[in-house]
């Protein structure tokens, strides 16, 4: 026997029960809903093309169409047994390592200075560091070409002064490409190191000095070990970006300096060897990942005491 009061009390609970359930579902799946736009975007434009390429790399090559029927691992065995392709791969990895090292050596002092400076124009220094990223890649490269070309500013000056009658080989080689890459990837090295150094208590440096360490000793024994996470992050970024760089090697290397990225595009676009090109692209990715993994394994133990 329900009194009118009880009925009035029950009705809204029935109505809100479904609403409550919907809210609970929303709450439980909120994370999924929030990431779904990104997930859909990535699957359409990253996962699907990657899978497509992976499948392509196992297809039979053909001279008359994109690929012949059937599947093979021949593309991989060919790439991994041919000394030419292995040579280009080794050169690419070595080139990436050297570029990373140069960025590290140039970038570290800049990052240290910027982290510790109390200058009023600190904001301006940030803009300077980011400036390579503010200029389009083509404009930036043509700027370098004006400087580095065989008849460029530097070579003309050098020739006129009689220092090197035949000019210096500044472009169409590892040096020219390296200059272009270091220029644009330097911010990716500096910024992680900068934030790592900023998180080091300046009192630690003073403590080292008070204990008898020189300025250099303090940097070597205290600042660098404590900024290793930043160095590690910056190095991985620069290395990965370098081995996969394409536009700069093409513009400043003019295809005379061959690395994996330019080679893969040549095979895909010029030679139309899609299966083999795809296989080479995956070999480059896998080698890069392997190097990064090894790097993390080697540098990890050095950061033992850090949180």
């Amino acid at each position, binding site marked *: 026997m329900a009194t009118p009061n009880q009925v009035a009390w029950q009705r809204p609970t029935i109505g809100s029960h479904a609403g409550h359930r919907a809210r609970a579902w929303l709450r439980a799946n909120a994370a999924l809903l929030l990431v779904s736009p990104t997930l859909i975007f990535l699957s359409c434009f990253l996962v699907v093309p990657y899978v497509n390429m992976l499948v392509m790399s196992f297809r039979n090559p053909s001279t008359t169409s994109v690929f012949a029927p059937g599947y093979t691992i021949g593309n991989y065995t060919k790439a991994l047994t041919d000394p030419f392709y292995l040579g280009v791969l080794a050169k690419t990895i070595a080139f990436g390592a050297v570029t990373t090292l140069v960025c590290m050596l140039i970038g570290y002092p800049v990052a240290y200075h910027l982290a510790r400076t109390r200058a009023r124009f600190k904001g301006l220094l940030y803009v300077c560091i980011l400036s390579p990223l503010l200029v389009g890649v083509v404009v930036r490269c043509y700027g370098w070409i004006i400087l580095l070309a065989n008849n460029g500013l530097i070579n003309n000056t050098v020739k006129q002064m009689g220092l090197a009658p035949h000019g210096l080989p500044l472009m169409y080689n590892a040096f020219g490409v390296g200059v272009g890459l270091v220029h644009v990837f330097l911010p990716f090295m500096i910024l992680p190191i900068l934030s790592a150094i900023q998180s080091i*208590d300046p*009192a*630690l440096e*003073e*403590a*080292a*000095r*008070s*204990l*008898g*360490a*020189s300025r250099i*000793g303090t940097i070597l*024994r*205290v600042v660098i*070990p*404590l900024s290793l996470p930043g160095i590690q992050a910056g190095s991985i970024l620069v290395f990965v970006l370098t081995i996969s760089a394409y536009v700069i090697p093409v513009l400043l290397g003019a295809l005379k300096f061959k690395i994996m990225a330019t080679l893969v595009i040549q095979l895909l676009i010029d030679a139309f060897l899609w299966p083999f090109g795809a296989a080479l692209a995956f070999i480059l990715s896998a080698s890069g990942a392997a190097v990064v993994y090894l790097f993390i394994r080697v540098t990890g133990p050095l*950061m*033992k*005491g*850090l*949180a």
Partner: protein
Amino acid sequence: MTTLTISGLTKRYGELVAVDDLSLEIAEGELVSLLGPSGCGKTTTLRSIAGFVEPDAGAILFDGVDVTTLAPERRDIGMVFQNYALFPHMTVRKNLGFGLEMRRIGKQQMAERIAKVLDIVQLTGLEDRYPRQLSGGQQQRVALARGLVIEPRVLLLDEPLANLDAKLREEMRFFIRSLQKGVGITTVYVTHDQAEAMVISDRIVVMFDGRVRQVGSATEIYLHPASREVADFIGLSNFIEGRIKERTEEGRYTVETPLGDVWCRSALALPVGDPATVVVRPESIKLTRSPPNNSELNCIAGKVRDRVYLGNIAGYRVVCADGSVIQVQEQPWHVSAVGDEVHCVFESDLAWIICE
């Protein structure tokens, strides 16, 4: 053993004068505290001794040798920082070994010295821990040990106990005091905590606005403050304004105040008729119902306005005839109720004249 001399030290930051013509002589094995509110220049002074601050004028001398322009690493100092500044990427052993390594001490001797200093700070067994695996108090003692193990000429401590909780801080005061007496290193200790300075120091340097206001033992500074500022900063004080009426004998004066004549002491030769402020500490005053028989005691009549019970003491605020308030700290078992007519009684020896 090193004597430390600071002469005419001055440091400006733009318009602000952080340290103004500071001179100080610290004897071998002495522990001197720089005490003052934040921004008084005590840390700048310490950092000048360490070599992290380049003074605009003046000199720092170790055993009479000018070190003013010497880099910090060449001064042979041990420094303990407020936040300890232990190297997070090194174990306790490596932290302690850092200074020894810089001094190219051999492996064996290094191990011996580390073991010895760890024993002194009671941390034996924690050699292989990283700083983040230690409690705040342990980190603090590692920082002390790191400063001591290099057997520096001068030990500099910058608010080393500020980050510890109250109970541990009190223990550490005594610990540092006995440790410093044991090793006998000339020490400068910076703090804003007056109790800490009083427990730890041989001498206290009270600083305000970059200037030294008084130098003396804890007793001297507490009982015979040089100025109203010093008296106000260290402990509670009653200030009674008046005029010198008469000089009764050597160092003894009668001061005429709105509350009646007060007999007090001063080390200075004060001319009759000059304005004077009398300082009386709250715990120097006893409350009585009737005026004392002994006419040599000072006595000011008043009425109890507030009473607070703090366990170890009972605090009173007594309103006098002219409306001024006298603070009194009595024994906790003393019972005067709010509204009682009382007499504030204190000895002339405990009333001190300051002139400004």
